Each structure stands twice: as C-alpha cells, then as structure tokens.
C-alpha cells in the first residue's frame, strides 16, 4: 500500500489537470483529489490485482503501461493501458470479483482510490467525486461501444466500413490538350 497524500507531493494535481473529466475542476478540487490518492509503484510484471479477488480500488495510471489478461482463456492478453487511463474502476463502483488480472508491463506508477475514500470525497469535495465518476462512465461507455461492435462482428455483421481510401493509382486518364486528343484518337482508332 502506498502513502496517502503522496500523489499531491508528486504533483498528482498536475497530472489530473490533463484529464478531460478533471478539466472543469477548480484547483482546490484537484488538490483535494490528489491528496486522497495513494501512489503505488509497480515493478515490471508485478500484478496489480488478480481475477476473482474482491476489488475495492480503482487506479489512475500515471506512468508506464499495464496489461489485462483473462485467466480462464489461457491468459490471453485483452488490452494494454497507459498513462491517463483507468484500471479496476468497475468493482470500485459496483462491488464484484475482479473480472481480469492486471499486471505492469514495465515499471509503472498508479494512483489508487478506494471505495470508502471515494464515498468520503462525495461529501468533502463533491465536484472531485463527480469528476472521478464521470471518468469512470466515459471509460466504461467507450469499452461498451467497442464490445457491442465486436459482438456484432462475431455474429456476422459486416465491419463498419472505414472511410474509403483514395483510389489507388488508377490508370491515368489521357490528359486533355493536344497530346490527350492525340492519345484518344490513337486509342479510338485501334
């Protein structure tokens, strides 16, 4: 467990300012939030939490990258997450066993916020708590849209067509002008 308040000492308030969800917060709220975040340093390959464990905390990644794996599926890597992203936010808001195992890919620093602290924040600094919840909702919603798309594709729906790339070097049309007319005339007379 890290030291409470260490995030404030590490300039956590500045990191928080970089999040869209925390932009609307005043400096006082950002400082209030960074005071309750605990800093945790992870060494490479160190696990942050294991699938099936009860989860109390969510983590904001400050540095490094983390990888989520599903134990049941031969440890298949599910996704990588980097600075500014949230990890473990679901069980923090809605208690349930952790659905994945998350470990650090390289050395990483995360800021931890547990459920009880979030609840306290709701009373002491409601705007800060609101910023956290908004970040959770955005994270979950983005993943939900992505999952919906994958489910549709698995069920045989064609993938949404990406914007059409510019047509690749089509055979050049004869240029207008004297030469073009000559080429056209030659082709026409074939």
């Amino acid at each position, binding site marked *: 467990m890290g030291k409470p308040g260490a995030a404030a000492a590490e300039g956590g308030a500045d990191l928080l300012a970089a999040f869209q969800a925390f932009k609307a917060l005043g400096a006082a709220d950002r400082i209030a939030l960074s005071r309750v975040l605990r800093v945790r340093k992870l060494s490479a390959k160190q696990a942050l939490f294991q699938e099936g464990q009860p989860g109390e905390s969510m983590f904001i990644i400050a540095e490094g990258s983390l990888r989520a794996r599903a134990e049941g599926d031969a440890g298949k890597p599910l996704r990588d997450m980097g600075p500014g992203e949230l990890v473990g936010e679901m069980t923090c808001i809605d208690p349930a066993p952790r659905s994945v195992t998350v470990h650090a890919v390289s050395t990483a620093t995360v800021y931890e916020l547990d459920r009880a602290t979030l609840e306290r924040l709701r009373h002491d600094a409601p705007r800060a708590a*609101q910023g956290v919840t908004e970040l*959770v*909702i955005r994270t979950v919603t983005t993943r939900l849209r992505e999952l919906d798309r994958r489910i549709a594709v698995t069920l045989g729906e064609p993938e949404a067509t990406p914007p059409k790339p510019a047509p690749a070097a089509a055979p050049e049309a004869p240029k207008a002008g004297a030469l073009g007319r000559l080429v056209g005339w030659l082709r026409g007379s074939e």
Partner: protein
Amino acid sequence: MSIEDDLRRIPALRDLPEPELAVLAFVVSRRDASAGEVLIQQGAPSRSCFFLVRGEVEVRKTIAGSPRLLNTLDEGTTFGQIGLVDGGPRSASVVARTPVVVLELRRADYDNLLSSGRLAGLRVQEAVARAAIRQLRTATHRLALLEARNQARELENVRHGLCDWDVDVLKVEVVKTGLPKVRYPR
C-alpha cells in the same frame, strides 16, 4: 403516487433528502407505457436515460439482420444511460414487456444537475455509472460465450472432418476385407 415516490423506487436515489428528490422530480418526466410499446428505438439519436419505476422491459437488438433478445430489466433499473454520455445512436431497442412506468431524464437536465453540484446529481451519476458497468459486464460475458461457441463450432468441424476421413478409411477396409474370397478350382 407522486414522482418523488416513484424516484424512491430507484435504489441509488432512495436515500436522497426531500429537497433533492424535489429537484429531480421537477426535471424528469413520467411516462406510462403499455406492453409492447417501444421506449427506445435502435439507431435513433439518444438524448435521455430512463429509470424503470414499475414493470419490466426487454432489450432487443437486430444484429446481422436477425432480431435478438439481449436482456430483460426489472424495476429499479436505469437504462439508456449511454445516451447521456456520448449522444451516439441507440445501440438497442427497449420495449415494454408489461405495462410500465418510466421516468425520463433528458441529457440537458442531467448536465445541469451535474454542474449544479447538487447531491441529486451525484446520485443520478452513480446510478448511471452502475447501470453502464452492469451493461459492460453483460456484454463481456456475451462476447466470451459467442467466442466459445464459435471455437466449439470450429472444433466440431474438425471432428466431422476427421470422422469423414475415418469413415473413408473404414470403407476401404470393408471393401478390402469384404471381398468374397475367390475359390480357385483345385
């Protein structure tokens, strides 16, 4: 039955003090729908979320041309919450399974509630977060099942392939051993 009483049927809002409930009651609109009525249409632009006060609804989605029943939601559930967040098209339809009472909260009112910093806003936001998380869990489970089913099908195909091959081999054996023994005249 007042809208405040309706709001108390939503677990996240139950413990709100009276003045906060009154604020919320002022901004939501109550809607009674009969069984079969469409509350949310898949693909339509989303501008609101709903609290299910009474009755049950079905979440239906047409995927790859086939209609599917994704989920059934009970009293006290929040639905349509993604619409409050990204404003994208509705990902599924929601249809009343029984006569229902819902409270609709429009996006603009949700945003105002949040920027007011009121407790009502915090609680609604919590309900939205919880509903989104549960929806994500259901979707994760569904995708895992679908992928497992596809894998099982592939295995089945491989097994069938092997069987056909085995049968062919067997046929050859039958053909070989089943030949009437030719008796040569002594």
